[in-house]
């Protein structure tokens, strides 16, 4: 960059990461962070539409939602929640490692995050495969029979159960797509962190990717009770 000395934006400590339209690194960092938060605001509304559809159908067809929810594997769901929380910790610590200039530790923590992210997707894949085996995928071969919870002998409406599974696959599918994008992001960031691009002066990409990852974690924090824990009492 060639900012002349009489330019108002020329500052003596000129980081190579500073773009010329920002006054200093602090302003550049805050602008990037604010932009990321605005993007997450749009993501909240994106998932919000699906949550809204879920709430309406759950209100209308509660018995079918309760019966369908019981067929999800609560163990795998709980383990996956824990896996995501662990990945959030490793991301937060990776950003901290970059803030304190520990390159090796940053790379190790990012690799741990990738491992947790892939583990989540693997477990999710097992759950989806089980649903496929049980013919719980909405469509021509959908088959689901159950009785209304606490009322044995009273059959539920299988069409309404299909709506639950449609929402289940749409919501966990969109969440998984966000996870896959996050894994791709962190693959690139891990490479650059290994190259030594991030340090105490400049770690904005790591911080923003971290914000994205935590957001995806929060979506799952709500999906888990809403999908798996509707009606588990005996």
């Amino acid at each position, binding site marked *: 960059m060639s900012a002349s000395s009489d330019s108002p934006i020329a500052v003596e400590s000129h980081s190579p990461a500073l773009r010329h339209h920002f006054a200093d*690194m*602090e302003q550049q*960092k*805050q602008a990037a*962070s*604010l932009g990321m*938060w*605005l993007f*997450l*605001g749009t993501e*909240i*509304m994106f998932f*919000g*539409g699906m*949550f*809204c559809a879920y*709430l*309406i159908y759950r*209100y*209308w067809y509660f018995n079918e939602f309760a019966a369908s929810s019981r067929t999800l594997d*609560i163990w795998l*769901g*709980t383990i996956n*929640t*824990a896996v995501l*929380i*662990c990945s*959030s*910790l490793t*991301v*937060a*610590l990776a950003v*901290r490692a970059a*803030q*304190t200039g520990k390159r090796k530790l940053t790379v190790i923590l990012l690799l741990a995050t990738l491992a947790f992210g892939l583990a989540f997707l693997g477990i999710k894949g097992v759950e989806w495969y089980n649903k496929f085996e049980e013919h719980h995928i909405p469509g021509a071969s959908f088959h689901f029979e159950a009785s209304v919870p606490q009322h044995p002998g009273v059959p539920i409406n299988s069409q309404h159960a299909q709506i639950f599974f449609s929402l289940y696959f749409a919501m966990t599918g969109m969440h998984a797509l966000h996870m896959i994008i996050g894994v791709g992001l962190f693959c690139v960031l891990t490479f650059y962190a290994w190259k030594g691009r991030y340090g*105490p*002066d400049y770690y904005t990409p790591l911080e923003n990717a*971290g*914000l994205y990852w*935590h*957001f995806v*974690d*929060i979506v799952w*924090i*709500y999906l*888990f*009770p*809403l999908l*798996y*824990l*509707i*009606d*588990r*009492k*005996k």
Partner: protein
Amino acid sequence: MSEHVLPIKLYVTIWATLLCLTVITAAVAFVDLGPFNTIVALVIASVKALLVVLFFMHVKYTSEKMTKVVVVSAIFWLLTLLALSLADYTTRLLA
């Protein structure tokens, strides 16, 4: 940078709290609390989300005030969407 570097202990404490709340919410689901099962599950989820936003996402410590404005308004619009939609769908059969 004026940005805070938070102690590792804080991150680990938040992480442990989140794991405990996950186990609690899964366990409480098996106890019959009537309509309160859903409420307890959503309150625990919201506490977990709040912990992630405040500490992992650094909203508690950010120097940029606009971040908090964006977070609060995003939640406000989401609640508007849910409240107005449900106000419609849950009262249709009352007429």
